[in-house]
């Protein structure tokens, strides 16, 4: 029988948790991010005010989502662009694929877009014989390895330079001798320039959709987003419906906050604003411009008023970076498009609570994610709500439901609680004395596999209290 997503997660999590080499690579990467992030924060006078402002902007956008989406669409269409609304992943992917086929596209260059991962667009295009090139270096690397991105901002952070050099040697240029990151970048640049200049279509995501200006804002450091939007004759933007913001000037705070949270920079190197296809008299730029607005479960999340704010996410990756679970199991273990805390909160809404509830349980609820989220999403409390929703939907094991029913019966009957506690300590002490710790008879075996056993005192606190106070 095929393992469920939850079983796969447990297996991979156990493997990665024990992988000290992997842990060290991630540790170094995150230490580097921590240092940069601190520097970035120092540039902003009042970080809490910045967070509150960004939360306010996204709240306004989501609270009036239909109005702002329509305003955005109107502007884009007025300038000669086309807007297509896709209800789900399949529809979005089919639309773009059909469009590419209709327009005679043989090669596509892609600038980073998590939504295109979500709808499995590359696979759909490749099935039709269209070559797809990921142009973001990290995405390019994982594409060559046939794996998904490890992290939403730094897709290849789990690899070292040696592994990347070997990969390039094997897949691109057999003569590569250097594993210096600058030399490796040069190899990728050479290869991808061919693609930029021959591709008929570029597909990008959007960091923000600006309603009042009808602008698609795309931030990259590498310039791949720039080349994608300057050279090929067709530009397709694939974006979630929640990316909209009300005004162009909102970018004055969103851009620095996105960059600070994402990489520790003051602002991403290329903060691009695309207002449509090239205008008459312009010498370059796409002749045809399409925006695909993808729902795929987002309107459903919108309907959940308690969790609606999850749609405020600007995909900065800060919650992944700070999450101790992510730091120990890494991005691939989640097995979802979006890993980390935001992924754990979001995925049950996009892909179903029954299959993906385990992600909401795979957390110690430490709250670090919520404390760093630049738009103040209460992530860890949403994880808890997902847990509640899962049990209320009857999606948890009957044995667990029974256990907690019995637990509750004891907790409202002090005599039963006292008796149960005494008995548990007594039984465990006997069990351990018989050398059965860690065996299938040991109810604490999950604990004892990784830790020394818990203390089992002869007397509880209340027994001592009673004794001390009876003596008086």
């Amino acid at each position, binding site marked *: 029988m095929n393992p469920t997503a939850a079983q796969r997660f447990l297996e991979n999590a156990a493997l990665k948790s024990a992988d000290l080499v992997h842990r060290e690579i991630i540790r170094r990467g995150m230490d580097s991010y921590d240092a940069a992030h601190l520097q970035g924060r120092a540039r902003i006078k009042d970080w809490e*005010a910045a967070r*509150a402002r960004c939360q306010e902007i996204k709240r306004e956008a989501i609270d009036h989502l239909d109005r702002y989406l329509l305003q955005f669409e109107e502007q884009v269409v007025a300038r000669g662009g086309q807007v297509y*609304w*896709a209800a789900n992943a399949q529809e979005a992917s089919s639309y773009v694929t059909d469009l590419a086929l209709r327009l005679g596209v043989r090669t596509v260059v892609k600038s980073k877009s998590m939504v295109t991962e979500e709808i499995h667009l590359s696979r759909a295009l490749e099935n039709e014989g269209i070559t797809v090139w990921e142009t973001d270096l*990290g995405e390019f690397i994982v594409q060559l390895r046939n794996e998904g991105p490890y992290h939403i901002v730094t897709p290849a952070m789990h690899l070292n330079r040696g592994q990347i050099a070997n990969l390039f040697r094997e897949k691109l240029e057999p003569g590569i001798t250097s594993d210096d990151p600058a030399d490796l970048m040069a190899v990728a*640049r050479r290869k991808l320039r061919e693609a930029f200049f021959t591709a008929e279509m570029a597909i990008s995501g959007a960091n923000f959709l600006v309603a009042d200006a009808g602008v698609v804002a795309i931030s990259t450091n590498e310039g*791949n987003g720039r080349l994608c939007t300057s050279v090929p004759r067709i530009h397709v933007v694939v974006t979630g419906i929640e990316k909209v913001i009300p005004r162009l000037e909102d*970018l004055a705070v969103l851009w620095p906050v996105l960059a600070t949270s994402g990489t520790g920079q003051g602002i991403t190197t290329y903060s691009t604003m695309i207002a449509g296809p*090239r205008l008459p008299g312009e010498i370059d730029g796409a002749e045809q411009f399409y925006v695909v607005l993808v729902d795929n479960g987002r309107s459903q999340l919108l309907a959940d008023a308690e969790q609606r704010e999850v749609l405020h996410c600007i995909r900065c990756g800060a919650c992944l970076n700070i999450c101790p679970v992510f730091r120990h199991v890494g991005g691939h273990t989640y097995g979802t498009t979006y890993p980390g805390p935001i992924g754990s909160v979001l995925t049950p809404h996009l892909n179903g609570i029954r299959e993906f509830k385990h992600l909401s349980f795979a957390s110690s609820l430490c709250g670090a994610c919520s404390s760093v989220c630049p738009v103040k999403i209460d992530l860890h409390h949403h994880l808890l709500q997902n847990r509640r929703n899962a049990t209320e939907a009857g999606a948890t094991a009957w044995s667990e439901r029974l256990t907690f029913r019995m637990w509750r019966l004891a907790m409202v009957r002090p005599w039963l609680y006292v008796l149960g506690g005494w008995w548990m300590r007594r039984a465990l002490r006997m069990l351990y004395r018989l050398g059965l710790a860690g065996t299938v008879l040991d109810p604490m075996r999950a604990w004892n596999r990784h830790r020394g056993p818990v203390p089992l005192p002869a007397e509880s606190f209340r027994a001592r209290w009673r004794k001390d106070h009876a003596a008086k």
Partner: protein
Amino acid sequence: MPQNKQARTEKTSAGNPSRDLILGRIRQALLTSAPELSAPAAPSGRVIFEPIHNPLERFQQECIANLTECALTTDFVSSAQHLAKVLASLPAGEAFVQDDSALRRLVELTSPARSIRWSSEGAPREASQVTVTLAETLIAQTGSILVSASCGGRGASVIAPCHIVYATVAQLVPDLATALARIGQERKLDRHSFACVISGSSRTADIEKILVQGAHGPRRLVVILQVAL
């Protein structure tokens, strides 16, 4: 909904039934309000970014931080001299230059040894070694240049390994908020299909988080900033 808007809605949903479906879902969802924000939103009195009192100094500091080469020049002639110096430091190959009268005069003064392709002739060629353009605005807060499609097109600021910007101090604004407000006021994005805030050379840290300059865009961004006309 007003009559004409309704007509447009019906018209645009024709080939795209999901449009109505999604809009319907959104409107239905928004009938329920989300809980009030637990802490009050930032009162408008709180200042997010430190006000910038010396934009020129700040611009130069930020350029150093984001690896932009910023050269202050006193007049047109010294600007041309600096341009000549930078061009001489670059490998041989075509230069793509925005077709503007000031740039034409500037380039002429450098007595260029390389072939020049002007933006009026078309888009920059893939093998360009250097591009020279004007900018719309300079932004002190982040050490950025704002370019639009009118600054030699979209590719001019990304195709070649070196991008040189010629600007004057009069173009400098303190912060992003001012620059973005100006885009709106001057309706720049109605008249041009593209604009970009560029803050440094192209870079990546995708390999071991080590910063590498010159990913897909220019390795060198040079700003020749003339302080007087």
